[in-house]
């Protein structure tokens, strides 16, 4: 477990919460994508998705390292990226629910990457303008990677949406399943207000336009249901995250305090 004093500090510091939120999104999405490694439908695409998982892991690490540095500076207690990733429990993770849902089939996986990647793209574009220092540097680096993730996943959404009858049907189903998890990304919560609050309606509009364009190109009807699930950002997750963390954190939990 994370030291109680660090835990309490995080609860009071919105900047740290925001960094953890960004980092958790990247890490959990990376975890899900990495589960495909060795099991993809086409060798080249296995490699491509693993590449994306690696990018996302790199983004998560940059953000955790930055958060750990700030925590160390502000509390005087030395904190590491691994403590933040491996020693927090479900309720302390701040990723959006969309990131933690199981992979489903290849269609669901590429669609999730498209929906979330597009959001990250517009978000990081804003962060390039609004953030400063380390966070701006991370945004500058990440945006290049995310640009590719969006292009790759959008291509797949179109290809599968407009491929065969079966692939189309599977994409319709995936869209139906994932759609109600998209709203949460676009509704800023308290710790997001400070930095990007003013731009959130712009991000939302840009995201909606991008999604509508790609869905249309892939012959996919835009969903109309607007009831949205939420809670992840504030630590209220689906049942899936507990299993994910149990697996991911196993060694650090079973053998506490060791170097690996």
């Amino acid at each position, binding site marked *: 477990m994370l030291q109680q004093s660090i835990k309490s500090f995080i609860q009071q510091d919105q900047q740290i919460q925001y960094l953890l939120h960004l980092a958790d999104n990247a*890490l959990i999405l990376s*975890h899900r994508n*990495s*589960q495909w*490694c*060795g*099991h*993809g*439908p*086409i*060798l*080249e*695409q*296995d*490699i491509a998705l*693993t*590449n994306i*998982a*690696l990018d996302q*892991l*790199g983004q*998560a*690490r940059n953000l*955790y390292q930055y958060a750990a540095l700030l925590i160390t500076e502000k509390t005087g207690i030395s904190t590491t*990226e*691994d403590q933040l*990733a*491996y020693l927090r429990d479900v309720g302390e993770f701040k990723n959006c629910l969309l990131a933690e849902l199981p992979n489903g*089939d*290849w*269609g669901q996986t590429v669609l999730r990457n498209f929906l979330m990647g597009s959001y990250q793209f517009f978000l990081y574009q804003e962060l390039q303008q609004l953030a400063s220092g380390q966070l701006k540097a991370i945004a500058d680096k990440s945006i290049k990677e995310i640009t590719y993730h969006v292009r790759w996943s959008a291509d797949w959404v*179109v*290809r*599968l949406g*407009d*491929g*065969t009858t*079966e*692939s189309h049907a*599977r994409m319709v189903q995936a869209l139906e399943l994932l759609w109600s998890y998209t709203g949460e990304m676009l509704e800023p919560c308290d710790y997001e207000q400070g930095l990007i609050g003013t731009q959130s309606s712009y991000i939302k509009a840009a995201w909606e336009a991008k999604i509508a364009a790609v869905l249309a190109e892939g012959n996919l009807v835009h969903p109309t249901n607007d009831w949205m699930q939420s809670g992840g950002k504030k630590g209220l997750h689906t049942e899936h995250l507990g299993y994910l963390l149990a*697996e*991911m954190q*196993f*060694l*650090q939990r079973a*053998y506490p305090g*060791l*170097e*690996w």
Partner: protein
Amino acid sequence: MEQTTNQLQVQFQKRVDEEQKIEPRDWMPEKYRQTLIRQISQHAHSEIIGMLPEGNWITRAPSLRRKAILLAKVQDEAGHGLYLYSAAETLGISRDEMYEQLHSGKAKYSSIFNYPTLSWADMGAIGWLVDGAAILNQIPLCRTSFGPYARAMVRVCKEESFHQRQGFECLLQLSKGSEVQRQMCQDAINRWWWPSLMMFGPKDDESPNSKLSMQWKIKRFTNDELRQKFVDMIAEQIKVLGMVLPDPDLKWNEQTKHYDYGEINWEEFKQVIQGNGPCNKERLEARKKAWADGAWVRDAATAYAAKKDIQKAKANSLNKETQQS
């Protein structure tokens, strides 16, 4: 005038002897082609199946740094598979045919990957021992007589030696760690040592394909020669780890200037090749499942590409018409 097969064969051997590379369009003996297809595709399959035992630990890596290293490593292996499938394709077999041979059990892959990865230390042991053995097998292949294979191996070898160093470093960290970590480390070495020795294949006097492969310079060292090199290398490196190899007969021989080592369990080797290793069925099932589950994706990609081609062709002819009118 038509050259006789005999003349062609003589010329071929002459080129091989002169260390000229044989390229896909060159004449080659049918047996040379078949031997290479078998060997390169087996090698490609090994890379792909080899992703599975290590892939097992990606989601459980104990630190973010280790996770990134492991994920990148397994991805490298996928890349190796890709280069090798491409090299084999130049010999006139398609990747789908090779997959088909793998899935039906007709094509083999390295038996080492039929052993389970039971602890985190296995990631270190595989990198150090398995990639280490692979390097010794593969370095001579960088000069193998068939051009595309040799060129693929140059790229592969660079990455493999990186993998070996990372594997060793992973074990080194464990060897300097807690009692539990040291035990983990020793246990992994115990389990991977003998199977790694088996990676060099049967003993020379029982290796049916070796002689011709040497003559054609597909192979340049015998199985036993390479195995000895490996033992000599690892017997020294393990001292740095402060661990031991699970072989009571292992000792330095002043006369031969090599390490002597104990008898390999060839019955186990045979059984694993025949499909009775601890994970043969799981490994193959995982690949078959990935292939079957991906069928609709590949179909859709093909259908979409065809649609786009038709649209493009239509647009082109429309363009021409408007230009002409």
